[in-house]
Each structure stands twice: as C-alpha cells, then as structure tokens.
C-alpha cells in the first residue's frame, strides 16, 4: 500500500496513468453525447492553458483571448474552404497568422501595465468581434461560416488509417494537441524563460533592474499564448464545422477566464480541472438557462475573494495543513 502511494505521488507515474485512462475513454464510453462533451473539454482546456501562460505565469490580464481563439478558428476555416488547404497546413498557418496579429497588438498594448493592458486588449477583442460580424465578404457576417470539413484521414504504416470524421478520431486528435500544449507549457515553466515570466509577474521594475528585457519577455509569453489558443480555435472549427461571430467575442474570453480562475491561476493542472468542472456543471445545469450564468458569476466572485488560488491552491493549502499536523 505504501509503495503504491509513493508511486502515485510521483508526478510522472501519475501523469502516465492519467494519459492511459484518458486514452481508454473512447473505447469505454459509447454515448455520443458524452464523447461530444469530452471533446469540448479537451479543446477548451487547451485555450485555458494558453490563457494561464500570459495571465497566470506572466501576470498580464489579457482580455482578448476569445478574439484570438476566433481568429485562429476563422483563419483555419477560411484557409480550408477558400484556399482548399488541408487541415494540417491550415492549422499551422492559422497559428502563424494569429501569432503575427498577437505580436502586432502586443507591441502597443504590452507597453502598458495592469488596467490599461486589460482594457486595451478587451477593446481589441471587440474590434475582432465587430470585424467578424461586418466583414461579410470574408467572414460571411452574422450568418457565419458553414461546411468546414473534418481533417482528412492520415495513413500510418501497416495499413492503419486514422480518421478524424469520427468522434473518437477527434477525441484523440484533441487529446494529442492538449498533450503537446502541456509539454510545451511544462518545458517553458521550468526553463529560464519561464522563470523570467514569473519574475515579471512578481515585479516588473525589479525584473528589469537585473537586466531582463521585460518587454521582450512579455511579448514572448503573449505570442506563445496566442499561438496555442489558435490551435484550440482550429480544433473547434473543424470539430463543430460551423463558426459565427459569437465565437470571437469577449464572452468566450470571460468563459475561459472562469475555467482558469476556478481551477487555479498559475498552476499547470488548474486550468484543465476548471474546464472539466465548469463544462460538466454547465451541461448538467443546462435546464437552468440564465440562472446558470448567475451561478457562474457568483462562483467567480466567491472564488476570487475566498480562494484566490482556485481549487488547486485550495488543495495545496489543505495538503500543507495535513503535512503540518503529521509533523
């Protein structure tokens, strides 16, 4: 029993077990509805993780994340439909486009701090939404973009063909990209770049006084974060197959923010846990309609006042209390 506990407390073993369990999900779960919910959780987890990079680790309240999600989704859809690109080139090209836009917006807005940055990015999000709604010749306006095809199948050696038109194919694709995101994030957080992100979060003045270029650090964090959110936008576009301007609006930003805050700002697993909880609760409480949004709001306010580090922070302080009692 003790060795089992020790094995479980090792992060890597625990991680591998979780990965193996998640891989079993499409085999065990036969309900289409639940598969749909799980795929959405995977896609939104990527978005939440990317927001956490700029907000949780670098301390910059980027309120344009829904806009960048939308840019990634629209870019993928339009590249695939108008230029007949395949999914994979479209995925990468969309991420590049989103990164360039992020870089151009980051240059003026990241020069500002705190509230100014939050408001500047929120305004950009509104610009993206209005552009998606009114630029009819490109985005189809309020009618949106329809008929986005699923990624074409990949042939592997030994005659195995991976199809993405099925739910389980989409599930594995999303899970794969989530793992890639987690890996990138883990590597960044434990590198010198990640340390400088956190240094900027703690104190920008102090960080620049020891010779770190804070502007460059913030730009790197911002562009990486929008690159990743574009990936989740692409997944959303090909999975749902339909986009309307609402997917680029600040409501998306707020929802992703809720995932991150509830799970735990500045933790690796927090955003995923937050996404799982909010999405599952949202599905279960669908019948409550607008009351559900009131509940979202209450959760945000209460969590930020009483548990500012989210569920992960709450668990951590509980662990510390137990450890202190055992001593």
């Amino acid at each position, binding site marked *: 029993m003790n060795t089992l506990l020790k094995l479980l407390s090792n992060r890597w073993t625990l991680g591998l077990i979780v990965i193996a369990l998640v891989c079993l999900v499409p085999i065990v779960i036969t309900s289409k509805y639940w598969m749909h919910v799980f795929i959405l959780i995977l896609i939104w987890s990527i978005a939440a993780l990317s927001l956490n990079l700029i907000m949780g680790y670098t301390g910059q309240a980027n309120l344009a994340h829904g806009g960048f999600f939308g840019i990634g989704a629209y870019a993928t859809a339009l590249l695939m439909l108008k230029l007949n690109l395949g999914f994979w080139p479209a995925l990468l090209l969309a991420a590049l486009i989103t990164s360039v836009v992020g870089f151009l917006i980051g240059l003026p807005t990241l020069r500002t701090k705190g509230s100014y940055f939050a408001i500047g990015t929120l305004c950009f999000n509104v610009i993206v939404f209005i552009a998606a709604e009114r630029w009819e010749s490109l985005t189809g306006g309020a009618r949106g973009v329809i008929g986005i095809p699923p990624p074409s199948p990949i042939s592997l050696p030994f005659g195995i063909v991976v199809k993405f038109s099925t739910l389980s194919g989409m599930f594995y694709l999303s899970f794969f990209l989530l793992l890639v995101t987690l890996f990138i994030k883990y590597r960044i957080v434990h590198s010198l770049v990640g340390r400088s992100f956190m240094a900027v979060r703690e104190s920008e003045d102090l960080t620049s006084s020891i010779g770190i270029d804070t502007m460059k650090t913030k730009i790197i964090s911002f562009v990486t974060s929008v690159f990743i959110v574009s990936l989740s936008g692409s997944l959303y576009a090909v999975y749902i197959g339909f986009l309307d301007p609402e997917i680029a609006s600040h409501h998306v930003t707020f929802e992703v923010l809720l995932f991150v805050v509830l799970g735990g700002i500045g933790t690796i697993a927090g955003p995923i846990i937050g996404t799982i909880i909010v999405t599952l609760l949202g599905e279960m409480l669908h019948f409550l309609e607008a009351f559900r*949004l009131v509940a979202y709001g209450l959760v945000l306010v209460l969590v930020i006042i009483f548990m500012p580090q989210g569920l992960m922070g709450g668990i951590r302080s509980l662990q510390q209390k137990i450890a202190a009692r055992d001593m």
Partner: protein
Amino acid sequence: MDLLFQQTLNGIMVGSVYALVALGLTLEYGILHIPNFAHGVLYTLGAYLTFLAVAALGYNYWLAMACAMLVLAVMGIVIDRLVYQPLIAAPHLNSFIAAIGLIYIFKAGMLIIWGPDFKRFPPINEEVINFFGATVTIQRIIIVLVTAVLIVLLNLFIKKTMAGMSIEALAQDREGALLAGINVKRVETMVFAVGSAMAAVAAALISPIFLVYNTMGDAVILKAFVIIILGGMGSIPGAVIGGYIIGLIESLGGAYLSTDYNEIVAFAILIGVLAVKPTGLFGTRAH
C-alpha cells in the same frame, strides 16, 4: 452644412452620456485604482429601472430617474462593501475577475427579469423645436442641459464640500489621506454610490431616445474606458472632454465615413494612442 450641424448636435448629445458614464468610472478608478468593468451593467440596470418606473408604475419621468439613481447608489454601496473592499489588498487582477463575475450576475439577472426583448419608452418630451435650422426634440436638449448641470454640481461638490475634498485627497495620496484622519472606507463607498447614480442618470437620459435592452451597456462601458484612458485615469476634466470628443468623432464619422465600422473607431484610436503614449493623452503616471 445642415448635416454637419445636425450631426454635431447628435455628437454632443451622445457625448454627454459618455461623459456621465466616464465620470463615474474615473472617480472609482481615481480612488480604488481598479477598472470597474461592472459599471456598464449598472448603466443598463439604470435604464431598466427608469423604464419600469415610467411604463409599469406610471411615474413621472423625473421621479423615475430619481428612483433609478437611488437604487443604483444603494447597489454601488453594496457592491463596494461586498466585493471590492475585501479585494483591496489583493492583486489588481483579482478585482478585474470579480468585476467580470458581477457582469455575469447582473446581465443574467436582468435577462431573467426583463427578457431579451427590446423595450420602448412611451413618448417623452418628443416635441420638436427648430434650433438654428436643425430640428431637435426637447429630450435631446434636456440630455445636454442635465449633463452640464451635473458636471458643474459634481465639480462644486469635489472642490467645495468636505466630503468631496476627501475624495480628491484620497485620489492624490492614500497614506496622506489616512494620516489626515480621513475615513478611507467611507469615502470609497461614497464614490461608488455617486458613480453608480451617475450611470443611472446617463441611462435614464438616453433610453427614451434609444431602446432599452440587455446588452445596451456593453459598448458604452468600453467607450467610457477608452475615454478615461485617453483623458488620464482618475482625471475629471479628462473624462468630460474625452466624452464629448468621442461622441463627436462617432457621430461625424458615422455621417461622413462608414456606419459599419463606426463603432470601432474609438477602440482603434485607443490602441493607436497606447502605441504612442502608454499613459494616455493627458495621463501623467502609469499605475
């Protein structure tokens, strides 16, 4: 020429509303140094309350406006005491998040009570008068006049009364104000009451002309933020001048340029200004 004059009048009218909303925001920012994103939903609530009092309860328009002000002032106090005060020592990020939570609560709450439909006021002050060749309704003139009076009153309140001076003292130097024996909490609560009441007036003034609906505050609050960034956060003259400038740019831009992208002009200006001067046009220091 007529179009120019008519649009200028329109710009001043819309600018008055922006100025009132921005004034409340800038006061709150000056004291607490947090952007109160929830100010916009209070504006919407103010419009609904005025509508409720006029259309359902049959109150006189001015009485309805006063009721909306009173309710909103109380709401401002409650929000400050329950949400913003406990977060005063936490990082600013936490206050933004709390504000977003408040937006959810109020917006969904109003959706439950009043539904998604647009509400139209019964005709109020719709008599038309001829004003140097342009035709304006009385209500439009009322908007401009009431705003001007309120701006003057607010200025007198801040410069001449003890309570008002304590607001200014707190905005300038928090520790200094504490040392001078100012009850900081009480001043903060007062600012929230005054700011929210001003949002109610702005909404009560404009909603008989436009319609009342759930998302009416979204664009207004963002523009108010643009205004206070341009005017320097916490600056009262900045909020007033910025309000009229954005109102004029919008109505003239809408008439002579494109109506499709009219709404994003203000936001594009903001990002442009931030690129050149991160502290805003009249701002002196970054927070």
